[in-house]
């Protein structure tokens, strides 16, 4: 109204903000570098230091790199002012990893602060010291954390718990047992706040060490309601895992109610679910649900990766949970107490806690108690869907209305009582819709109409006889409905229910005549459907009508054969052939088409006459993953996703081992019998350093080592040559640990480590030279070899696609091929082997894509097959059409190369296999190992690429490898040279890798160690690039352990595409630990 007033108000508010901004740090953020920061940092006034630090912080906030101030900032760590300290810490944490050398300067100060009487100072020092993440100081941090874990202040103990994952991130194996020991101590803390943080540490440090939980289980449950909300979320998950690992699933719960009640039944079902499409009919819904739950519970426990990779059903059945893996929720106290302690958490005002508690109940609670979780979960959403849907239909947003109509359909399927009301409502809606539709308010109206008819269709499907009148009404309204999809659907209904009741058959002649009359003006979809319907009617017809139908049908076919669209023409030809027996009056010329007429009739009957099974509307993808997990939302296994543990995998014996002996044993295993531990672990722990520092790096380190004495060189040195420091430190660590790892009295250790560091800091220039030379000597003694003959022995793993039992004697296997598709880089090549195990010839075998059929579901599924699989979907088809196998004699084998585009690297692809005119649904399970192709390169290129893919692009996991033992044992009869032992290991490893993934072996590094039985230091490098994006992916495997024992492998993947890289890593670990089955 008064623009000028508005302007004043605006400027006024601006002015007031200006006033408001006085005294804040606004000017520091706006112009952080309008004064010279360096002198301020050196000022002797705290306030000036503060200002300088705030300016630096502002620059960090805005994304500038101010790490060049690092040395000056570090000096201020000794300041007495807490504000300066805090700001320095903030800066330090941001840049410490970039400037490790200078960061070391602050360590002494932290050590001093750790002894400060003020708990806040102690806590900050610990947090920062652990947060700067330097390998060199890890032993010091470990000691500090151990000390702080016994601190009188709760806050400090909590920070100690948080520091453990930071230490663990450095992946120094020798510290693992000590870290776990501290986790145990903190889990046993009497303060709920500490327990919460300790639970988080447990989850990230040692989630599998459930025996730690077992010791304190009761106490943890009791303390749970008092733990802070964030800790509760994590702790609930841990307790659930523990109970399942210890006691198994609960008999009364939803998860296993089925497997228990009738295991033979469920066994039968599990084989039916894939192959039973044809057999099962409408009454499937009940069993389908149970099957579904069955699958869900398996997925929770096994993880989808494993679940989907199960190749054959024999395997799956063997996993059938046996009775011993169940416990009763009523008699088991551990289960009871968990449920009891989590149920009040359903009242928490943190929704994450509610969801975590609810998921415990979902998995563990007796069936009848599960409903308890519904209300709290709904309360989170703050809405109830109890109201009647009818009111929404008038909503102005027509898309919403369409959804509503679909919801009504689903409602009815669940609540049969409502059927009549809903159908009446929908019919009224349709009548109204086609009235209003004339006014052309566009696509959305059409959407509502189609949806309404679809809903009716699904309702009718449940019980056709009682809805006869509905069908008649719809048919009557056919004239006024103009939307092609809706028309097509009604016509489909005519065909499908042509023999239903008494009135419909009588109407048929009229309807068909009407359809024939308007055929030419119809759209494609409707035309196809009219043809289908006509042939269906024809099949079911008897008596006098038959003649009329025949006439109408031949008229229609004639029309269709002249159609502009080739799909329609195609369909017409097809149907003409098919129905030839009905059209031609029976005469002597039997079997003109090479097939007996009777067979043709059967085929036609089969295609058109059978009942259709409900297609499950709901996507089950998201049920693969545990409720409330990130994976459930993003629909793939996020890195670090773990399914529930295997029931009863934790034996009671594990719990009885006292902690002390446990860790000592571990220590002994680590250090026992390895003379050259210091050197060999140095090269294997830090594989990336040794990998990249190999050649040219030496000269740099040599020169910097010499001039390390003066300070200026110290600061100006880049980040590149951190390697020598870390290598030295590793030696230091190892020796330090040999002395100190098993000691629990802190004083001595602290003294020692303190001294060690100081002496190291003092002696740095001098000591670095021998260190380097020693390291490089070790390196030099490793040799590179090549294994030439591995390629020949690679045999890809074969999976079963179709069992002869289910495929009438046709056996179909597939294996991923290393061939690269020439059509599109999105396609994966798969070799499919067909074998006829029966005694009769199998004909017309072909594989087509199921999904694209479903897209045209409104139409008749079976007969749309041919054209739909050709339709492109995102330009690249899901399945490049396969050359049909005309016939396969008994015992004959043939193979085809299939090019497939998987939509997801975990979810199976549904295909349909046609043979002898029958359709068999099959599932093709993807293997991420073949979503890549080999990328040949030499070692130098590999190293170079690797050095660019550090940090977040690098992931490591370790596992044990046992394949070689068998190999070695097999050959142990011959007098085997030690060298050959290594070779055997290399070969079995390389073979395993190349048989399971499409990789290129780049190099094999072999140690020429003093200890002949020690395979540590063996390293294999593989390279590949991702098919879809052509991003390179590097894999390094480092071996540790004795030749004749199971080897510890550490697998490292460097890849720019994080999610893919991690999934590939998981896959590699999975198949490496898998045993070979001969």
């Amino acid at each position, binding site marked *: 109204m008064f623009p000028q007033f508005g302007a004043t108000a605006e400027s006024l508010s601006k002015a007031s903000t200006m006033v408001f901004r006085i005294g804040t740090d606004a000017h520091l953020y706006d112009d952080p570098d309008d004064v010279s920061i360096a002198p301020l940092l050196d000022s002797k006034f705290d306030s000036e230091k503060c200002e300088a630090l705030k300016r630096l912080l502002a620059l960090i906030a805005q994304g500038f790199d101010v790490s060049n101030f690092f040395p000056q900032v570090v000096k201020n760590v000794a300041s007495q*002012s807490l504000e300066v300290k805090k700001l320095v810490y903030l800066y330090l944490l941001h840049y410490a990893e970039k400037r490790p050398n200078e960061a070391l300067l602050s360590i002494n100060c932290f050590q001093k602060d750790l002894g400060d009487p003020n708990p806040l100072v102690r806590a900050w020092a610990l947090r920062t010291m652990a947060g700067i993440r330097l390998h060199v100081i890890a032993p010091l941090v470990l000691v500090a954390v151990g000390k702080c874990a016994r601190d009188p202040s709760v806050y400090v103990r909590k920070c100690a718990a948080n520091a453990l994952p930071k230490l663990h991130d450095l992946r120094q194996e020798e510290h693992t047992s000590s870290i776990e020991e501290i986790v145990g101590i903190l889990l046993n803390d009497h303060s709920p706040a500490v327990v919460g943080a300790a639970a988080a540490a447990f989850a990230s440090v040692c989630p599998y060490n459930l025996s730690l939980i077992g010791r304190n289980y009761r106490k943890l449950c009791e303390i749970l309601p008092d733990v802070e909300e964030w800790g509760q979320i994590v702790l609930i998950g841990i307790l659930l895992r523990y109970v399942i690992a210890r006691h198994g699933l609960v008999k009364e719960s939803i998860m296993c109610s089925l497997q228990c009640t009738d295991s033979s039944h469920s066994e039968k079902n599990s084989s039916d679910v894939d192959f039973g499409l044809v057999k099962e009919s409408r009454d499937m819904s009940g069993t389908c649900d149970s099957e579904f739950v069955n699958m869900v519970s398996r997925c929770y426990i096994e993880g989808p990766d494993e679940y989907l990779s199960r190749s054959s059903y024999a395997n799956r059945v063997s996993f059938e949970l046996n009775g011993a893996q169940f416990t009763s929720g009523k008699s088991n106290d551990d289960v009871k107490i968990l449920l009891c302690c989590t149920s009040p958490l359903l009242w928490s005002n943190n929704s994450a806690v509610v969801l975590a508690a609810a998921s415990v109940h979902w998995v563990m609670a007796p069936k009848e108690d599960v409903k308890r979780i519904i*209300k709290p979960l709904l309360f989170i959403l703050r809405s109830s869907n109890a109201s009647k849907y009818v009111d929404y239909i008038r909503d102005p947003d027509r898309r919403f209305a369409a959804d509503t109509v679909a919801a009504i359909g689903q409602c009815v399927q669940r609540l049969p009582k409502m059927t009549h009301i809903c159908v009446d409502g929908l019919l009224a809606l349709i009548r109204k819709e086609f009235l*209003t539709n004339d006014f052309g308010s566009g696509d959305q109206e059409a959407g509502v109409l189609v949806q309404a008819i679809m809903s009716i269709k699904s309702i009718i499907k449940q019980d056709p006889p009682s809805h006869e009148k509905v069908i008649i009404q719809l048919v009557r309204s056919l004239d006024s409905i103009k939307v092609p999809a809706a028309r097509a659907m009604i016509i489909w209904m005519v065909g499908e229910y042509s023999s239903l009741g008494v009135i419909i058959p009588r109407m048929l002649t009229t309807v068909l005549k009407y359809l024939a009359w308007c055929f030419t003006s119809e759209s494609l979809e409707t035309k196809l459907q009219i043809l289908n319907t006509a042939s269906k009617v024809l099949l079911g017809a008897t008596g006098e009508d038959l003649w009329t139908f025949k006439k109408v049908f031949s008229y229609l076919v004639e029309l269709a054969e002249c159609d502009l669209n080739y799909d329609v023409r195609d369909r017409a030809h097809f149907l003409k052939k098919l129905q030839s027996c009905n059209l031609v009056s029976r005469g002597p010329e039997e079997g003109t088409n090479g097939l007996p007429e009777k067979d043709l009739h059967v085929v036609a009957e089969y295609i058109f006459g059978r009942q259709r099974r409900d297609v499950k509307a709901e996507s089950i993808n998201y049920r693969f993953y545990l409720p409330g997990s990130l994976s459930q939302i993003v629909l793939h296994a996020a890195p670090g996703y773990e399914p529930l543990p295997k029931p009863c995998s934790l034996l009671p014996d594990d719990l009885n081992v006292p902690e002390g002996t446990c860790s000592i044993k571990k220590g002994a295993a680590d250090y026992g019998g390895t003379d050259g531990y210091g050197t060999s672990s140095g090269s294997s722990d830090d594989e990336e350093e040794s990998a990249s520092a190999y050649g040219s790096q030496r000269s740099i380190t040599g020169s910097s080592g010499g001039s390390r004495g003066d300070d200026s060189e110290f600061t100006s040195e880049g980040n590149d040559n951190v390697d020598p420091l870390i290598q030295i430190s590793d030696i230091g660590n190892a020796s330090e640990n040999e002395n100190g790892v098993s000691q629990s009295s802190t004083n001595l250790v602290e003294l020692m480590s303190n001294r060690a560091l100081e002496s190291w800091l003092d002696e740095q220039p001098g000591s670095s030279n021998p260190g380097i030379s020693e390291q490089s000597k070790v390196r030099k003694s490793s040799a590179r070899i090549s294994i030439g003959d591995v390629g020949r022995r690679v045999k890809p793993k074969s999976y079963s696609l179709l069992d002869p039992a289910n495929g009438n004697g046709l056996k179909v296997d597939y294996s991923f091929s290393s061939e690269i598709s020439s059509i599109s880089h999105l396609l994966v090549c798969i070799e499919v082997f067909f074998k006829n195990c029966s005694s009769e010839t199998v004909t017309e075998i072909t594989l087509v894509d199921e999904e694209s059929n479903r897209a045209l579901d409104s139409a008749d599924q079976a007969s749309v097959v041919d054209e739909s699989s050709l339709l492109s979907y995102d330009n690249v088809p899901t399945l490049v059409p396969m050359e049909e196998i005309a016939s396969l004699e008994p015992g004959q084998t043939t193979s085809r190369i299939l090019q497939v585009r998987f939509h997801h690297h975990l979810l199976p692809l549904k295909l349909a296999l046609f043979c002898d005119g029958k359709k068999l649904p099959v599932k093709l399970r993807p293997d991420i190992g073949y979503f890549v192709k080999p990328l040949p390169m030499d070692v130098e290129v590999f190293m170079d690429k690797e050095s660019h893919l550090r*940090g977040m692009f690098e992931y490591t996991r370790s596992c044990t490898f046992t394949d070689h033992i068998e190999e070695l044992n097999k050959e142990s009869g011959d007098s085997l040279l030690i060298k050959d032992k290594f070779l055997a290991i290399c070969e079995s490893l390389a073979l395993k890798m190349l048989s399971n993934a499409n990789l290129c072996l780049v190099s094999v590094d072999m140690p020429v160690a003093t200890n002949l039985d020690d395979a540590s230091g063996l390293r294999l490098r593989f390279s590949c690039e991702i098919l879809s994006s052509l991003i390179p992916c590097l894999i390094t495997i480092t071996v540790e352990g004795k030749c004749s024992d199971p080897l510890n492998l550490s697998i490292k993947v460097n890849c720019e595409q994080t999610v893919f890289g991690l999934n590939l890593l998981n896959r590699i670990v999975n198949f490496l630990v898998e045993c070979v089955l001969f």
Partner: protein
Amino acid sequence: MLQCIFLLSDSGEVMLEKQLTGHRVDRSICDWFWDQSISQGDSFKPVIASPTHYLFQVVQEGITFLACTQVEMPPLMGIEFLCRVADVLSEYLGGLNEDVIKDNFVIVYELLDEMIDNGFPLTTEPNILREMIAPPNIVSKVLSVVTGNSSNVSDTLPGATGSCVPWRAADPKYANNEVYVDLVEEMDAVINRDGVLVKCEIYGEVQVNSHLSGLPDLTLSFANPSILDDVRFHPCVRFRPWESHQLLSFVPPDGEFKLMSYRVKKLKSTPIYVKPQLTSDAGKCRVNVLVGIKNDPGKTIDSITLQFQLPPCILSADLTSNHGTVNILSNKICSWSIGRIPKDKAPSLTGTLVLETELERLHVFPTFRVGFRIMGVALSGLQIDKLDLKTVPNRLYKGFRALTRAGEFEVRS
């Protein structure tokens, strides 16, 4: 666990980044995110899978809080935490906007550093945070201008971090001990076109403002707790007494907090009625809406408003009322503010809508959203029986209030 938190302004500018773990997240992820959120338009997704990271986002008062992770974690935990950060910042800075965050970036950094350690929440209780890091206030600002020196970082650790009631600041002292309990309720209702009440429920909160010395132990009881359908509690509420006797037993945090929230379902009536009538004929639609008191709650109903979206097929609208003011906003929302209902007449809105030329009559009907406020009454009927304090200080003042307003109150036509 979370790897990094970014704060983005409403124009997509990265105002702050806080790295939490050793796995540094490049801020280019924000550009990706911003492009994505622009191209996605309205569909707001709190969890996004980017090529390199999983992102959680929370938007509050125009500021986007973005957190990144690469590993599995409960997504709700990430979102709840971001909400908590947003709440704390908003409380500290008196609202959120681009300027206020930039002006106080040091405090934001200090708060973030205290709230999360290595990607896992550390101290999130507002009371404790306030003791560790002083909120900016006028005194400290003036002081900093005058002396050029002020620290907002506390030198000592708040005692509460170690106590068994971590939400309560240690030993505050008040000359006047006061505790106020407010019942704040929102009525969600749906009335269909026949005037039938389809859904009517109350979403309520018990808000407490406590200024009590020492370590007070309070017990709050309701006269009719059985009417509560769903409840959620502040962490300070002990579960046992509620399970056994429906008593709220707690040691309150200092200051204002939300003690519990609850829901009461299946109420039988609404305080006011709204009767819309739309009759369309020959390209025109006559609108007539009547509003009046249905069940007198005994207190005055004020701030009554009525809003509805005009159907898209309307060319022009001419609407007038006999009471209050009618505005048609640019996005075709008609807003009628009534205020209080006068004694002598029933407010009504009348007028005609002109439909698009080829349209004979209206076939989509608007939904009317109703707003109102009633002071002094909790419409759910929930009544506080008494509030007991275990050790009663010499001067204690207890106050109770109630308020009901409309939540999602919809009338269909």
